[in-house]
């Protein structure tokens, strides 16, 4: 499920040079080195500081995304990612990892712990939900010695790059960055620049290279009401060229950033309308203890709390059971839909339908939600084949797998694997028989250097290889049949799980036990009426 892929995303693409005009006062509007003021929460940020603090205390979450372009690198960070990368120990870990490769002293390693040029900016932006986008000159000869991506990203978030560096070229420097949505310039509530610390061979180099950060509203990443992802671009100006490098942000990145902010967006649902509305859709009670809290809130109509709690839980490991994830996301989508936040609801439904293309909602579901599900539904086989029929079809290698376009490759693989193994077995058997004929015909005195024992050995070896291929063919054939039956059984089970979802009656009051796994404890929850 896409909303659960909170993992770093590496995207490379070529920067495109276009004829977009450079702002006349580009030099004059270079971002400042220090923030001018502290940002107020704003109309959409009330309570955000407390919420992100709570998230940060629960654990490390939120992924940052690195884009490699021709001349620049872009690091995109949500507030949760900034908090996750904030620990001094991470940059120290990155430097420590590179200590040997770059011949750094212990003092230099320790020194990097204090590098934090964005502390004042981060503090100024803390109370407002903003996405930070940092643009760096491209690392020329990077050393991958950072003891992991998290440490590397943490170091980058503080402007530290590791490797060997050529003398800075003005064309490759970052002077200013514009953030545009669908071609229109988006207002950046905060932007700044800071030096790049180049951790190089035996030295920490400050050659005047700078990088730029802009903070933008997460709403800029919101899909439109049709669910279409906006076209987001960074226009990066260097100090000498009038034309910017245009770096489009990948669609997956835009969706991932947007989804990271959904728990906060959900938080605001109850603020907008405090009246509880009991939804028409009801789902089975989850097994996960945190999701149970969200479930209870949902059942009593606290939709914002329910959606926020559920989506916040999905940000952390361990992952809940798959059914819990599905129902939590459906609850959140229902909550957004009932509060007329159709873009968010559609985004969630799109993610759900991507994983469960055969999902159908109960008749009680709001029509908007059902329409979203239908819109997001991609072609899939939503019927099942009787298992005896699948078993019979599997008599032809691969035919048991040929149940739809998704499994076509596997079907061809089974067929080709069986056929190829069988063919090779036949080839070797034929070869072995040829050798054996020669063996039987051998009457001594052969001048070709072959004798009876070697002819027999060749015949027998070829026969054994042929037998091995025959076993392989049978194994692929049988395994293909078993897999086909098992897959169809699972498919049938999954179809049953996602048919008419949402018509589970609210759970009757009673005492229940459920296993509980949280970040700080493991146990059993006892739920009383």
């Amino acid at each position, binding site marked *: 499920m896409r909303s659960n892929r909170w993992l770093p995303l590496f995207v490379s693409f070529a920067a495109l040079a276009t004829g977009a005009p450079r702002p006349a006062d580009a030099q004059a509007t270079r971002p400042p080195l220090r923030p001018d003021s502290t940002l107020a929460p704003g109309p959409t940020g009330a309570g955000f500081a407390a919420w992100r603090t709570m998230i940060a205390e629960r654990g490390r979450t939120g992924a940052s995304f690195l884009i490699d372009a021709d001349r620049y690198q872009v690091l995109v960070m949500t507030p949760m990612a900034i908090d996750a990368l904030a620990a001094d120990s991470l940059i120290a870990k990155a430097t420590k990892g590179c200590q040997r490769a770059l011949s750094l002293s212990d003092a230099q390693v320790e020194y990097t712990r204090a590098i934090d040029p964005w502390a004042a900016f981060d503090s100024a932006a803390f109370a407002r939900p903003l996405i930070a986008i940092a643009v760096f000159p491209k690392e020329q000869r990077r050393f991958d010695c950072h003891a992991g991506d998290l440490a590397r990203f943490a170091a980058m978030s503080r402007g530290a790059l590791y490797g060997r560096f050529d003398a800075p070229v003005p064309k490759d420097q970052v002077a200013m960055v514009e953030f545009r949505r669908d071609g229109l310039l988006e207002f950046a509530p905060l932007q700044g620049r800071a030096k790049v610390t180049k951790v190089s061979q035996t030295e920490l180099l400050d050659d005047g290279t700078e990088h730029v950060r802009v903070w933008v509203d997460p709403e800029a990443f919101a899909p439109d009401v049709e669910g279409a992802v906006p076209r987001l671009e960074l226009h990066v100006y260097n100090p000498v060229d009038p034309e910017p490098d245009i770096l489009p942000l990948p669609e997956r990145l835009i969706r991932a950033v947007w989804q990271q902010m959904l728990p906060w967006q959900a938080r605001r649902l109850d603020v907008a309308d405090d009246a509880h509305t009991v939804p028409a859709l009801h789902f089975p009670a989850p097994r996960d203890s945190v999701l149970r809290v969200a479930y209870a809130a949902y059942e009593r109509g606290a939709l914002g709390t329910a959606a926020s709690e559920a989506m916040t839980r999905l940000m952390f490991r361990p992952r809940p059971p798959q059914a819990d994830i599905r129902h939590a996301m459906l609850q959140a989508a229902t909550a957004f839909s009932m509060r007329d936040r159709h873009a968010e609801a559609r985004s969630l439904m799109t993610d759900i339908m991507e994983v469960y293309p055969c999902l159908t909602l109960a008749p009680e579901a709001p029509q908007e939600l059902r329409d979203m599900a239908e819109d997001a539904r991609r072609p899939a086989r939503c019927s099942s084949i009787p298992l005896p029929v699948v078993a019979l079809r599997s*008599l*032809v*290698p691969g035919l048991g797998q040929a149940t739809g376009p998704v499994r076509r490759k596997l079907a061809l693989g089974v067929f080709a694997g069986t056929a190829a193994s*069988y063919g090779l077995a*036949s080839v070797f*058997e034929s070869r*072995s028989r040829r050798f*054996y004929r020669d*063996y*039987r015909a*051998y*009457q*001594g*005195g052969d001048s070709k250097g072959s*004798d*009876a*024992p070697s002819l*027999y050995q060749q*015949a*027998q070896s070829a*026969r054994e290889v*042929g*037998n091995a291929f*025959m*076993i392989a*063919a*049978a194994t692929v*054939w049988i395994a293909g049949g078993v897999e086909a039956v098992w897959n169809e059984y699972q498919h049938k089970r999954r179809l049953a799980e996602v048919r008419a979802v949402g018509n589970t009656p609210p759970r009757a009051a009673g005492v229940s036990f459920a296993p509980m796994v949280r970040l700080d404890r493991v146990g059993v929850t006892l739920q009383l009426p």
Partner: protein
Amino acid sequence: MTHHARAAVVLGVLALAGGCALQEPYVRDNHWDPRSSATKSLSGPDSVFAMGDTFRVTLQADPPLPPGAFYTWRGNEMYEGPPPPTLVYPAGDGLFRVVSSTATFEVIAVSALFDGVAVSRQVRVGQRVQSYTFSCGVACDALTWQAGTSRSVSVLAADANRVPIRRIEVAMQRGSWLSRDPAVASVAATTANPAGTITISAVASGTTWIVVRLDRAVDSLRVVVP
């Protein structure tokens, strides 16, 4: 799926299933294979007792050898160092010739070679005394024996091919000699010797016969003591 297509699929599956059999190891029955289960043997005489004799051995094989099968016959002609006293050469097609032998009966292996595989038969080869004559220096009948005197008499022996016996002492070890009347003449306890001589002593007046048996040859010498 049409009826024909379904039938074709079923036939294909059956063919595939029928072909899906593991093959057993091949039978090793080639006579030129040392680990073959095929059997071979040689039949022929057990022994040959005259130099220059030939003998023939016959090869039996199961399964039968194909026509034109290539194999070679071998006696003991391949040797290192000085030639052995007994030599048997192959003369082709299972025929062997005793080129050299002595009164010693030796066991010689004659073989048919199938590349590295040999099938052999052991044959006793030697010279057996077929005939002999006494040699007394002059005509033995003309010898005068005085009581109390001794004379040496040589035995000149030959095998069935009239080839002189080589290493006569070996034949003498197998032989025996006696006097019909030891009161007239006696045969001294004679040790086997390469010259083939025996010593006869005249004891008292009279006439007697000295009988000598070498292998299958028996002859007598008349002794008259005046």
